[in-house]
């Protein structure tokens, strides 16, 4: 009786945990480095079918296929770059969350840097303009006029 209860509890736990995982299989690696690489790779590639999910985060059939393939390629000893290339050859640059730096993406990577530099330039020019303005002394004539304005008595 106690044994049956233990088995039932275990079954419930298994069912509950697989439901929580949302149908995404757990892969155990003996090597923690391999495990980390698998995790990073599946988090860095977009699922072609479900646009806002990484393949490591999606239960679309194609995402499962791609995880399988990442796993196989890791076991074959391929490097991360080779694995990413392998996927890009089939599914296109689209799957990369981090687009590569190349002709097509110079604008994408360069624009933020260019804008920050432009902003810095504007700030620099403003500071210089202000400094010049404040350090400019009044001419004798201007001073006289200011004095006159200050000392002018209001008509009462």
């Amino acid at each position, binding site marked *: 009786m106690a044994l049956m209860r233990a088995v039932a509890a275990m079954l419930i736990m298994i069912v509950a945990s697989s439901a929580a995982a949302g149908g995404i299989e757990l892969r155990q690696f003996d090597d923690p480095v391999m495990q980390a690489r698998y995790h990073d790779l599946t988090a860095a590639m977009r699922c*072609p*079918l479900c*646009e806002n999910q990484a393949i490591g985060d999606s239960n*679309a*059939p*194609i995402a499962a*296929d791609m995880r399988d*393939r990442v796993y196989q390629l890791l076991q074959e000893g391929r490097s991360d770059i080779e694995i990413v290339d392998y996927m*890009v*050859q*089939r*599914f*296109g*640059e*689209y799957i990369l969350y981090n687009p590569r730096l190349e002709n097509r993406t110079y604008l994408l990577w360069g624009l933020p840097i260019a804008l920050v530099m432009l902003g810095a330039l504007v700030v620099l020019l403003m500071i210089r303009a202000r400094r010049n303005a404040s350090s400019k002394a009044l001419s004798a004539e201007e001073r006289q006029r200011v004095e006159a304005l200050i000392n002018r008595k209001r008509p009462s």
Partner: protein
Amino acid sequence: MKRRLLLLLLPLCFLGLALFFYKGLSLDPSQRDSALMERPFPSFEAVTLRDEHQRVDQTLLEGEVTLVNVWGEWCPACKQEMPQLLELADHDVRMMGVNYRDIREKGLAFLNEFGDPFEANIFDPQGELGFDLGVYGAPETFIVDANGVIRYHHKGYISPDDVRERILPEVEKWR
């Protein structure tokens, strides 16, 4: 005057970026080209759907412009697409099927029920060829030229209008 121009620069920058993002954000991400465009059809080794002893490979597609349609019995849009594929076969387009992630009996039953415009069907139960083709759903259609290079890719359902306006002109273009 110089200051005026500088002030004008800011709204111009804003307008430029706004147009850029408006265009970018109104693109449909599901309508992107296959990564295999202008590349040779991936090499494969498989058997056909009708005969599990008949071995085929990528040379099957060479020699003539061929339309390769990836389908499965489980795919509702493939059933709706079949009349258009039969029409294409009537226009003497060479048709090759890829029976993708399917069970042989179900695939054969599908052909019996909805028609068979294909010269042969490559049986791909594990989706291996599909993976190399970058297929992530069905139906998908490729046009492969006589040298076995992929020249056109159609993602999803082919409508009767697509047959006239896209598929037939593309087949003609590569003949």
